[in-house]
């Protein structure tokens, strides 16, 4: 069987783990061939890839949506061609009305930012703060996960137990370590003080750590949180620099999506929604994750 896969982006660390998880898993299955395409963050390109898959007659399609609002026409295309479709990682807007032979495998983004922020809040409380300010580093503004994770931060801070925390700055560093480092340096040079950095992903968090270190700030004075639990992030946590990250089981999502796609292609029925939970990673349980992502 041939399965066409359209990934939102290839140069995203997290999605790379997901993609590799899927491909490694496909390697263990007999007669399953993956055709993986890179949509390079372009909705139209992704739609075209689906149409190209259909023209090539694949048996099933897996989509990691660039824009989760643009999934309705994609579902339509696949349904018209009678080819099963599985969305992975990013939740399609038409989840409730997915046509037959379509499914969704992911973790719930609401959890990621929430787990991260709650842990940061807990650490600040533990440190005995009664007033605290944090800076928020956002991913690319046009990206759904960036918006959701930022929203999660706001939602957590709105709860009574965390309301002592104020957001002093909120800026985008486009998921990038470099831009993250520059952003934090610019903040520091503007004399902005903060007790914690809450980043939408690990890369920006690492950038923040590098900038803080370069400015001679002791890493136990600042709490830094990210999302993804990438190798670099876990190494930073092991070094005592990163305090919080959230493990998203990328490989699990990848293999789960492929299983669903193959099952649909063979005419079996599959749950419409398959949830793979986010897990909080702290120095306490770090060891459990070092061999994962």
């Amino acid at each position, binding site marked *: 069987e*041939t399965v*066409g896969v359209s990934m939102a982006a*290839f140069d995203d660390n997290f999605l790379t783990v997901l993609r590799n998880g899927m491909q490694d898993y496909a390697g263990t299955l007999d007669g399953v*061939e993956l*055709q*993986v*395409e*890179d949509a*390079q*963050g*372009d*909705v*139209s*390109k992704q*739609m*075209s*890839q689906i*149409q*190209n*898959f*259909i*023209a*090539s007659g694949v048996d099933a399609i897996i989509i990691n949506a*660039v*824009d*989760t*609002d*643009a999934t*309705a*026409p994609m579902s339509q295309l696949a349904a018209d061609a009678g080819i099963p479709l599985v969305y992975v990682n990013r939740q399609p*807007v038409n989840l409730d009305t997915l046509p037959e032979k379509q499914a969704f495998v992911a973790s719930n983004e609401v959890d990621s930012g929430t787990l991260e922020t709650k842990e940061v809040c807990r650490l600040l409380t533990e440190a005995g703060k009664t007033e605290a300010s944090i800076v928020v580093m956002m991913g*690319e*503004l*046009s*990206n*759904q996960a*960036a*918006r959701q994770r930022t929203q999660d931060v706001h939602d957590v801070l709105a709860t009574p137990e965390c309301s002592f925390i104020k957001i002093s700055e909120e800026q985008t560093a486009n998921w990038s370590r470099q831009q993250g480092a520059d952003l934090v340096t610019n903040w520091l040079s503007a004399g902005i003080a903060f007790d914690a950095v809450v980043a939408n992903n690990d890369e920006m968090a690492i950038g923040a750590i590098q900038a803080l270190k370069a400015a001679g700030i002791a890493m136990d004075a600042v709490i830094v949180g990210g999302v993804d639990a990438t190798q670099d992030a876990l190494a930073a946590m092991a070094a005592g620099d990163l305090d919080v990250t959230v493990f998203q089981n990328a490989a699990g999502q990848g293999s789960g999506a492929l299983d669903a796609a193959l099952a649909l292609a063979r005419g079996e029925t599959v749950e419409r929604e398959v949830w793979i939970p986010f897990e909080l990673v702290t120095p306490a349980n770090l060891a459990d994750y070092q061999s994962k992502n």
Partner: protein
Amino acid sequence: MTTTSESLAPPRVRRRKLPTELSILLVLVGIALTFELLGWIFVGQSFLMNQQRLTIMILQVSVVGIIAVGVTQVIITGGIDLSSGSVVGMTAMIAASFAQSADWARPVYPALVGLPVFIPLVVGLAIGTLAGVINGSLISYTKIPPFIATLGMMVSARGVAKWYTKGQPVSGLTPEFNFIGFGIWPVVIFLGVALIFHIALRYTRYGKFTYAIGANPQAARVSGINIEKHLIKVYAIAGMLAGLAGLVTAARAQTAQAGMGVMYELDAIAAAVIGGTSLAGGQGRITGTVIGTIILGTMTSGFTFLRIDAYYQEIIKGMIIVAAVVADQYRQRKRKKV
């Protein structure tokens, strides 16, 4: 010219030269046949004998194609337009916000839902045109290089796209609006636009002036052409077409997103240059641009068809772009004049 005293210049033969696009057309045919051949060898299928694939080959590049038609005209004047991709994103966002249907839960303007379809269309074209007029005016009246004027617009328009809804996509568009992105409509729009501007460039004064300005702006000015006014026109048209492309993109995806159209300007410029438009200005044709666009589409479809690994696709794509132009150059090579 031996004897006769009254012999004028030798009689003219109006040589109908082969159009220069012919050579790039041959490159396209060559690429397609290569895929066909490789298809039979490696996939055991025909590449071209597939209605669906022939459609998607053009469909997937029709938005880039619409932009490229405008960009070609800009390049013929000796300019460049880097803003078109961002203008696609900006117009998609703004126009879509006037095209939301009444039953969508979170419209941008709750009071303005379910509007007749011509409103978002007019809004989209107007915004694109406005961006173009700003580009053109900056270039004409402040004499800054087109590269900088349109780079500024590129950055600003992308900013507007993100700012407009704070990055939220605009969804729940009316079926009437989505219709212009449905099925092969984008292809029809692309080819229609190409035809119109092919005629405009070849048979109207607008076209003659466009070429003249690109070939030698000083000479054009001395010959009485109002360069400033004309350039604004050309950039306005390019902006309008980028706006149209934004409408088609949003309609096709049934949503508008701030990141739409990223890097399309490069694809559009590449399509024009592959099609024989010279970045030095004064030379180029819409037919060539259409072929250049289709070459890009053919490549994408061919790669998927041959199941080429995505990692290799880009590497190969870069090489094919270069090879296509080299082949074209080689075929056209005239004896070089120093």
